[in-house]
């Protein structure tokens, strides 16, 4: 028992030194961070032919603040990750099937039918303005690249309106850098199983370690 206590105590002293190294910022948040549901109904031939695009289906607004004692390494990254609920048995490359109309002789839609575009006025993201696709469940696309470990040279301060802005700031004061409009586009094939299908995109904001 004495040995256990000794190990735990030692671990307690070591752990904070590692964990504290990850906290450089006072606040990292998305505003608002509530979920959004978007339904795309393909009930007309022209919708199949031309696809459907929803501009600004979501606005991802970032707010990152320094601590009271400013840490020069306070910076952040933003990613988006696709999820097709594999726990329900969904194949890794397909949309989750909620219901199916007809006999299901054709294929279910693959994940890459969903295209996502990120944009803001300063074009801070390297993928700004270009539709991106995912291939497999869990695929991750960087909107603002993470740096592990972060160094002062990696930080691009807010207000620069440059590619890769990742310093502290807020959509309230630097809207063109800290707001991201999310557009989605789906252009289904003519030979897909009719039915209702679903995907989830998670936008993940995290401070750089």
């Amino acid at each position, binding site marked *: 028992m004495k040995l256990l*206590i000794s190990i*735990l*105590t030692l*671990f*307690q002293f070591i*752990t*904070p030194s590692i*964990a504290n190294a990850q*906290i450089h*910022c006072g606040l*990292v*948040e*998305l505003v608002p*961070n*509530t*979920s*959004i*549901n*978007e*339904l*795309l*109904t*393909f*009930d*007309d*031939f022209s919708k*199949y*032919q031309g696809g459907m695009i929803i501009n600004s*289906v*979501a606005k991802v607004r970032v707010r990152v603040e320094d601590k009271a004692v400013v840490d020069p390494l306070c910076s952040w990254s933003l990613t988006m990750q696709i999820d097709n609920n594999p726990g329900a048995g969904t194949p890794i490359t397909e*949309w989750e099937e*909620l219901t199916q*109309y*007809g*006999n299901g*002789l*054709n294929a279910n*839609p693959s994940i890459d039918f*969903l295209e996502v575009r990120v944009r803001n006025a300063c074009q801070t993201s390297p993928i700004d303005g270009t539709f991106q696709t995912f291939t497999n469940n869990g695929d991750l696309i960087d909107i603002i690249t993470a740096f592990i470990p972060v160094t002062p040279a990696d930080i691009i301060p807010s207000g620069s309106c440059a590619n890769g802005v990742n310093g502290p700031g807020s959509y309230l004061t630097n809207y063109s850098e800290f707001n991201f409009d*999310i557009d*989605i586009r*789906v252009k*289904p*094939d*003519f*030979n*897909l199983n*009719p039915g*209702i*299908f*679903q*995907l*989830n*995109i*998670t*936008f*993940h*904001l*995290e*401070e750089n370690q």
Partner: protein
Amino acid sequence: MKKSKVLTVALLLGGLSSINAQLIDEKDVTVTMDLQPVLQLDMTTPNQVEFVFDEIDEYYSGITQYGATILKVSSTVSWDLYAVGRSTGTNGPEFWDQHIDYGNGASVNAIPDLPLSLLELRQNQINNGAANATGAFADYSAPFPPISAPSGSNSLYVFNGTNTPPTLDHKYIGGHAGSTGAGDFLPGGSYLTSSGTASDYYYSIDYRILPGLPAIFPMAFDELGTTAEDIVSANAAGNYAEPGVYTMYVQYILLEDQ
């Protein structure tokens, strides 16, 4: 001593949970897609296609209405297209409706029951989705046969006056019976995006009626296209079609391959 150990462990766990909290936030966008099956059959055709037989040569050579119906398909799912002959059933479910009987109608050899299958169809484009077909004729793409060699290659599919889909032994315009996933359907698509002079989504339909003389309609065959249904075969030697006015209709049915 025990208390202090418990306190140490509690503090330790509490400390770990707080110091590991890296600042993170997340937001979810869920996209739900409702893919509803859309099948569109655009048809250009006159309300009535009339065949008036008032010359002897028209009985011999028949009357052909070229391109009388244009069928244009748009479908988001795999599909089949077929035609079926129907009437209101005045003379029976598989016969034309007789509206007027010319003359006194006293001749016992004059038969008012004209089979719906006497109408012949010809599609301009071969059915490319009928590899699994097992019947004598998979579609209506054959040339109209001459009167000297009666054939059921183009006789209209009829099934007891109903719109029951044809089987593998019968004729389809596009696709065919069954849902094996190969050789029995045409894939989703549209005439709007097809190019070239031939398309699986565009069909020009010709109609022909050939009464013959005497008027027995030698091109009338059963749904298999193998058993003659002309007036004599269906009745007795010496019988012929009773003069008069008759009507029927052709129903074109586009359905999902299933």
